[in-house]
């Protein structure tokens, strides 16, 4: 099309939009501006003027435009402006300077967004339900949902019930029965309870400033966490933040620390890896280097026996639901409690297993939720000793010939050495059932019975919460030892054989793994190519401009307080691309980089989620951290430890898009196989942001505009809704449905593949000695020692009973042969800790998602298995044994104090026979931190169990946490706090 016609057409389109859509007319009325479209050499152009809502235009070059959009050549202009727009053409023009913009950044962004609004203003979303109620959709960490809205207020949140137009569900046949999942999504509590969190009394509704903070005078840093806050305007708040960004950048490279939690609300664009990621890269920040904190033992341990580095050392799970139901005779749940945190899709499948008469065994010091629900034999080993139990199983298997000899012979390396160790030939100690009894307290006869049953029956090993890793004993001080034993047990039974594999039916539903929709770890709009999974698909599928953080400094997450207070911190990199990635050291400060001047904290609360978290108070009250801005939705434990607080809004108050449990490549590829249906939802902006809150994206955009980078941040005026459309276009969904239909209905169920085209059973190719045929692009081609796709990622290409990669490092707690090393979190073995005779488990929470859903307005707080309300305050529940309670005069529902030298926390006692005496179990995350006295140095009433957990690594050469066997003492709470922190206890 000719340029003159295109530009004339554009003006007519603007006028029509203003005529038909009052919202667009209002938008035009917002500014009086003159915008010039032109060729760079001024040889042709058209100006458009907005004046008091009127749209005027003229051909040619205006003498005084407020902004100009110019094109290098006529051909480029015509290609750029002719609909339908080709995103690749547009970004090619932008990044190669074929198109440019002149004028104030803020105005350019406004004008560009106005042009896109011309298209989006006419879009219709949601389903009219009558009586003024509209049904929208959204996505949450707990699953996709319907959201009923009336008069701008959320009425209700429900699971999504599918209709006849949605793709059919899969079914599978096992032992004469046919199973098919319910035609709806199931929801976790933290998804269903979200309305209460939206309208929570803990919502931050306005920008706030600590009352005694003066950015140009006395900052009163020592009062962080103590002083009150006052409301300020957005302009004042943003001006202070930008002033501090500029001050910090002037001090030196990397002086801004960008710090977020591991999770955020659902959605590909609001996610921290997306909107915050782009912000970090454009500002240039020192990033926080996380550890694989829910997978520690698998990543640092099991990986060295079989590779699977890009699965964090956990095994494949494809096809295991069908194989388990068809073939398995027993499932051993080892430190495995899938009925929490991630909803109940797998629970439905486990009910089928029960119906089929598959036997269940549970190994966990706590008769966990899944175990209580399913029933079966319960083993309660002393925490931290599980590896002894596992080795005794190996002993029986070897002594009685109950292992897969052919698999061991053909597919593994180092078995003779392992056998010699187990039989005690090497060290004179047979790892017999009797030997383990002194460690675990499990009777030898029961271990023999289990070993024989397991050796004779086709058994699935559900290791960790997901059955294929995650949580549980893998997060304990001996987590690496335990996860290594899980891998070894699998190898001895020939994992991959029909009916013998890893899993507990939580992963491996027969969904379509080829249908593309981006997962959140693909980075959304971040443009980050190396520290996200962007390069896997998103970068090609959704053409966008790459961004890059030029700061070469990071701080290991566990040691942020040490980095600030002591000026240094060291760790090992979480590099999943190859096994050797984890041996690379990193440290702060990096050469040529500055020390931290300010922290940009984004959501979450370290007090409730990071270990030994009294350290954070000390850090925040130190002059060594001159400025803290905290951008959060709710007032959480950490929020008060800031100078400026920026109010973000919930997922209901802005646009986003996402697929249920689709994380994307990199960490947990194909995580959506947890679900019975793949469900993609547009996350409608259901209501207006509460108070003056804004979406995270919009807050970052405001900061960016003040730094002259609004146009770059928004890639030329894209709003969140525009990004959603780009994600839709990038996905396979666009081949099956239209944007218009999707936007209205709100969700899409991905069709399943025909039964014969389902993914192969995980690990079977290896069992059968074939090339890899499961649908994951791992390991990297270079990591195969021989032919591509043949064998494992290990140096021998085989399963290694004796790890070759661990021979490359000298780590006392990770010897190449996984010999039993008793835990030092044992009062019997650690004389410094005799005052703390109880072992504390701090597993993932059941009802909230980490701290999300634990805000003080959430209905989740009404669940007495989560918190108990006493005198108007909600205390975190701690599960304690009837025996330990009796010895201390504690009754059910009494307030109790748990403490050690690191911290002291008041909880509500849940007295039960479901936990092994000597063990206390209390969830790991709390949104609230409520010190009874001086912050950081008194008893917490809020429930931050992590105050008690140690900061040290699992083993020397790792950057890892171990919050799962910490020693504590407990008493009935007296109401008087005398606890003080002892800094120098081993």
């Amino acid at each position: 099309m000719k340029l003159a016609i295109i530009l004339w057409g554009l003006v007519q389109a603007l006028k029509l939009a203003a005529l038909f859509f009052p919202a667009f007319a209002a938008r035009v009325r917002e500014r009086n501006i003159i915008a010039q479209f032109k060729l760079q050499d001024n040889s042709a152009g058209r100006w458009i003027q907005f004046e008091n809502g009127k749209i005027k235009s003229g051909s040619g070059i205006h003498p005084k435009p407020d902004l100009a959009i110019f094109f290098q050549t006529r051909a480029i202009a015509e290609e750029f402006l002719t609909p339908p727009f080709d995103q690749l053409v547009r970004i090619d023009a932008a990044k190669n300077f074929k198109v440019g913009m002149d004028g104030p950044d803020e105005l350019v962004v406004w004008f560009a967004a106005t042009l896109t609004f011309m298209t989006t203003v006419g879009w219709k979303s949601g389903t009219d339900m009558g009586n003024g109620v509209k049904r929208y959709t959204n996505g949450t960490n707990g699953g996709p949902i319907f959201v009923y809205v009336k008069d701008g207020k959320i009425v209700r949140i429900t699971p999504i019930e599918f209709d006849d137009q949605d793709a059919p569900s899969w079914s599978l046949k096992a032992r004469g029965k046919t199973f098919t999942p319910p035609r709806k999504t199931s929801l976790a509590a933290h998804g269903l309870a979200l309305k209460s969190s939206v309208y929570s009394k803990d919502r931050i509704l306005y920008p706030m400033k600590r009352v005694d903070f003066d950015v140009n005078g006395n900052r009163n840093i020592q009062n962080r966490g103590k002083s009150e806050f006052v409301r300020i305007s957005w302009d004042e708040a943003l001006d202070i933040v930008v002033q501090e960004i500029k001050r910090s950048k002037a001090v030196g490279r990397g002086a801004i620390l960008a710090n977020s939690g591991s999770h955020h609300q659902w959605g590909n664009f609001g996610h921290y890896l997306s909107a915050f990621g782009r912000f970090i890269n454009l500002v240039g920040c020192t990033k926080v280097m996380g550890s694989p904190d829910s997978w520690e033992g698998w990543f640092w341990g099991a990986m060295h026996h079989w590779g699977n580095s890009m699965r964090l050392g956990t095994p494949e799970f494809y096809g295991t639901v069908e194989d388990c139901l068809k073939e398995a005779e027993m499932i051993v749940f080892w430190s495995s409690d899938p009925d929490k945190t991630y909803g109940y899709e797998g629970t439905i499948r486990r009910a089928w297993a029960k119906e089929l008469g598959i036997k269940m065994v549970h190994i966990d010091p706590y008769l966990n939720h899944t175990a209580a629900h399913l029933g079966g034999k319960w083993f309660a080993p002393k925490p931290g000793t599980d590896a002894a139990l596992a080795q005794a199983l190996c002993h029986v298997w070897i002594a009685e010939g109950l292992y897969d000899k052919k698999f061991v012979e053909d597919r593994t390396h180092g078995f003779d050495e392992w056998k010699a160790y187990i039989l005690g030939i090497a060290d004179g100690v047979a790892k017999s059932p009797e030997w383990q009894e002194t460690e675990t307290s499990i009777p030898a006869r029961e271990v023999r019975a289990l070993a024989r049953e397991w050796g004779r029956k086709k058994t699935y090993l559900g290791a960790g919460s997901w059955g294929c890793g995650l949580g549980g004993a893998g997060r304990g001080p001996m987590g690496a030892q335990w996860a290594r034993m899980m891998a070894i047990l699998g190898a001895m039974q020939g994992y991959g054989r029909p009916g013998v594999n890893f899993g507990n039916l939580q992963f491996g539903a027969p969904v379509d793994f080829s249908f593309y929709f981006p997962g959140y770890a693909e980075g959304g709009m971040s443009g980050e190519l190396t520290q996200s999974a962007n390069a896997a698909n998103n970068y090609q599928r959704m053409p966008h401009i790459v961004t890059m953080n030029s700061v070469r400094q990071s701080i290991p997450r566990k040691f942020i307080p040490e980095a600030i207070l002591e000026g240094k911190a060291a760790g090992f990199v979480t590099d999943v691309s190859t096994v050797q990635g984890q041996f690379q050291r990193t440290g702060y400060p990096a050469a040529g980089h500055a020390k931290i001047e300010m922290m940009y904290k984004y959501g979450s609360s370290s007090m409730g989620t990071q270990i030994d978290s009294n350290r954070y108070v000390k850090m925040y009250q130190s002059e060594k951290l001159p400025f803290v801005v905290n951008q959060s939705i709710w007032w959480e434990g950490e929020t008060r430890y800031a100078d400026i607080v920026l109010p973000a809004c919930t997922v209901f108050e802005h646009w986003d898009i996402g697929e249920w449990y689709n994380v994307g490549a990199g960490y947990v590829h194909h995580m959506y196989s947890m679900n019975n249906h793949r469900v993609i939802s547009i996350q409608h902006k259901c209501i207006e942001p509460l108070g003056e809150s804004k979406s995270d994206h919009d807050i970052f955009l405001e900061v960016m505009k003040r730094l002259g980078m609004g146009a770059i941040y928004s890639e030329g005026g894209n709003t969140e809704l525009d990004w959603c459309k780009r994600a839709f276009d990038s996905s396979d969904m666009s081949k099956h449905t239209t944007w218009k239909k999707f936007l209205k209905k709100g969700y899409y169920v991905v069709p399943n593949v025909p039964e014969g085209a389902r993914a192969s059973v995980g690990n079977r190719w290896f069992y059968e000695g074939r090339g890899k045929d499961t649908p994951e692009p791992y390991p990297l081609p270079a990591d195969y020692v021989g032919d591509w796709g043949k064998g494992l990622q290990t140096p021998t290409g085989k399963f290694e009973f004796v790890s070759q990669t661990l021979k490359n490092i000298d780590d006392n707690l990770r010897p190449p042969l996984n010999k039993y090393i008793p835990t030092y979190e044992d009062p019997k073995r650690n004389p410094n800790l005799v005052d703390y005779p109880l072992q504390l488990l701090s597993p993932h929470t059941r009802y909230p998602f980490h701290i999300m859903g634990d805000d003080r307005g959430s209905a989740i707080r009404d669940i007495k298995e989560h918190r108990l309300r006493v005198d108007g305050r909600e205390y975190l529940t701690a599960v304690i044994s009837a025996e330990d309670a009796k010895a201390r005069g504690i009754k059910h529902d009494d307030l109790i104090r748990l403490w050690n030298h690191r911290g002291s926390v008041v909880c509500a006692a849940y007295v039960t026979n479901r936990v092994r005496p000597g063990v206390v179990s209390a969830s790991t995350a709390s949104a609230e931190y409520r010190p009874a006295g001086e912050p950081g140095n008194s008893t917490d009433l809020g429930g931050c169990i992590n105050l008690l957990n140690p900061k040290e690594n699992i083993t020397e050469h790792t950057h890892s946490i171990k919050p799962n066997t910490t020693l504590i003492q407990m008493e009935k709470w007296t109401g008087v706090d005398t606890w003080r922190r002892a800094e120098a206890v081993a």
Partner: protein
Amino acid sequence: MSAKWNLIVDVAKCDNCRNCFLATKDEHIGNDFPGYAAAQPEQVHNWVDIKRKERGIYPIAEAHFMPVMCNHCDDAPCMKVAKNGAITKRADGIVIIDPEKSKGQKAIVDACPYGAVFWNEERQIPQAWIFDAHLLDQGWTKPRVEQSCPTSVFRALKVDDAEMRQIQVKEGLDVLHPELNTKPRVYYKNLHLMTTCFVSGSVVVDVNGVDECAENVDVVLTRNGSEVGRTKTDVFGEFKIDKLEARSGRYELKLSLGSAHSLSAQVDIGDESPYLGVLKLKGT
């Protein structure tokens, strides 16, 4: 006969996920439904609540959960104390406490033998779970407790009373406190998991000088000479005999493995489910 609403609750399927509890709060907190229910106050009301029952003693323990709510009784004690027609029994069986007419009538709360009616201090009204009548009247086919439950604990049925009686007999359904004759419309399956006790133990036998778990041991429980339960030990030597009435007193337990080994024991059933510990078979 006209079709009426009933709710069947299967205790064995409840995982305490709390979705029914949360869905009811989601539905009613902040929402007024005139003619059906005024908004529920935050925190203090649990119109649908979950009762917990733990049975057994470490290391043989169980935990069971049971959703409880207004039973929509056909002979509702609350209706007998209500004044000004504050409570109506709809033709479809649902009991509705009128949020206007019931003002000030705290007696309605006290009248409910199930503790299922809650007093709203602020509005001075009694409130209970309304079976989502407001949604059913709009065409919903099931209440939110059923919609939100991932493990199919609930089954709302609109059938006539004769058919419901047949279902009750066929599926062995109980109601709460049948002795009160309130004729509840909420029925329970596997209620014994909440109300009865079991006896358990771990049986051991000497095999060539080594203690082994004794599998397939015949376990017979008798009372006053008549058999009340029988099972076999599993591969771990464990047994469990269930559905024993709490506080039912003394029982005799007989264990035998073939003719070579046996053991007898006495067991008293009180409030709790006893675990007899390790029972070592003796040669006969």
